[in-house]
């Protein structure tokens, strides 16, 4: 069973077709990096996977659970899928630790001490053991994003989605977030990353997917993708970003 399977997925916002027949598979432990210009539909794919966006046609299956089956409850799907946002979206009225324990306590119904224990471990994992009691406003962007990663991991999801997780960060602190993401990849966390970090994609991706205009133009392992891209559109995009 694949960790993620998209078949013939279509989505339009009004007359604007943002996903035109997308099919994509991600195996357990794989890291799929989706790259492409703005407006190509990359983020919409991620948001469709956890139902933040409902698709018009096609099927999506996450770890055996059908996203497109209306009898599948949101909560059961979202427990399986962790999401990290470009703007972090930490809850500003809660401490870092409370951000991380909210899901486990209120969705998984873990007792407080168990949720706290989990949060402490995860904050240590992302290098923020000493920031548990800090509010988001007291943290740098890179620290906030690492808390957000810990928050998503606390649900022990089968799949992690990263929506341009480093795009809102200063170049010099993207490294600390990428380091955490690389560590997760090394631990065989199944990940789908929409990213502009070509170095990251080349280093950790199992597959690189290039999207443009709501279509997957080309998809290949990173050596092949960056070394010998087949499509003209891919070549011209890579020549601009590399």
């Amino acid at each position: 069973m694949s960790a993620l399977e998209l078949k013939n997925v279509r989505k339009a916002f009004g007359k604007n077709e943002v996903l035109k027949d997308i099919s994509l598979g991600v195996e357990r432990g794989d890291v799929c990096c989706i790259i492409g210009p703005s407006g190509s539909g990359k983020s919409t794919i991620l948001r469709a996977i956890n139902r933040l966006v409902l698709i018009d046609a096609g099927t999506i299956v996450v770890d055996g659970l059908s996203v497109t089956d209306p009898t599948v409850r949101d909560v059961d799907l979202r427990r399986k899928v962790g999401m990290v946002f470009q703007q972090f979206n930490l809850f500003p009225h809660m401490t870092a630790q409370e951000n991380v324990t909210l899901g486990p306590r209120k969705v998984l119904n873990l007792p407080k001490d168990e949720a706290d224990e989990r949060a402490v471990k995860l904050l240590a994992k992302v290098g923020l053991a000493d920031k548990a009691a800090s509010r988001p406003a007291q943290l740098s962007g890179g620290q906030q994003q690492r808390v957000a990663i810990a928050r998503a991991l606390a649900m022990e999801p089968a799949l992690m989605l990263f929506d341009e997780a480093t795009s809102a960060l200063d170049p010099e602190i993207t490294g600390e977030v990428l380091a955490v993401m690389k560590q997760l990849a090394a631990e065989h966390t199944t990940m789908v990353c929409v990213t502009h970090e070509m170095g990251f994609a080349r280093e950790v991706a199992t597959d690189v997917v290039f999207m443009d205009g709501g279509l997957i133009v080309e998809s290949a392992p990173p050596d092949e993708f960056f070394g010998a891209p087949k499509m003209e559109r891919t070549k011209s995009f890579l020549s601009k970003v590399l």
Partner: protein
Amino acid sequence: MSSYLGALPALVRGLGTTFAVALASMVLAVTFGFIAGTLRSTLPRALDLPLLGLVEFLRGIPLLVLMYFLFFGLPQLGIHTTNNVAAVASLALYAGALGSEIVRGAIVSIPAGQTEAAAALGLNTFSILRLVVIPQAVRRMLPPFVALFALIVESSSLAALIDVTDLLQAARQNVERDPDIALPIYLTVLVAYFIVNYPVSLASQRLEKKLA
């Protein structure tokens, strides 16, 4: 002068009534405002329409006319109210409509990313509101709500016109007995309203600066 001093106990009792009417109206207005505002910011458009209509209607009518309607009009439908109840009800409806806009505005001002992040964790709509959106929105509601409280205190003086013996009505009654004390009495009433409201308005300004 002696009739001025003689009027003071009545004014103090009137101030007590003003406080009671204003306080009861605030509690009801906040409750109504919270329920209506929360519903209005979460309900789909079609279900929101009746509430939108009610709120817009209440915001578009003079408070005094609403008070007259409740006190003089409703009895003809067999709904009898005391003047105090009619005053509180009309103030609560009027301020509640304004309050619902404060609540709705604060809720919709919370960035969509907050709701999305909470939804992505698997929280349901009610939990998202209760645990994520409303705690943040309440901070933004505080300054305008404090200003609304000041407005309620001021507007409660209209209740004198349906014979609630509040501060203003107590003053009127005494002036009717002795028109010569009109100036000191009404000056006293002005100052009394100011003394009650000024700390409220100061608190509002402070909160606004602190939470900005």
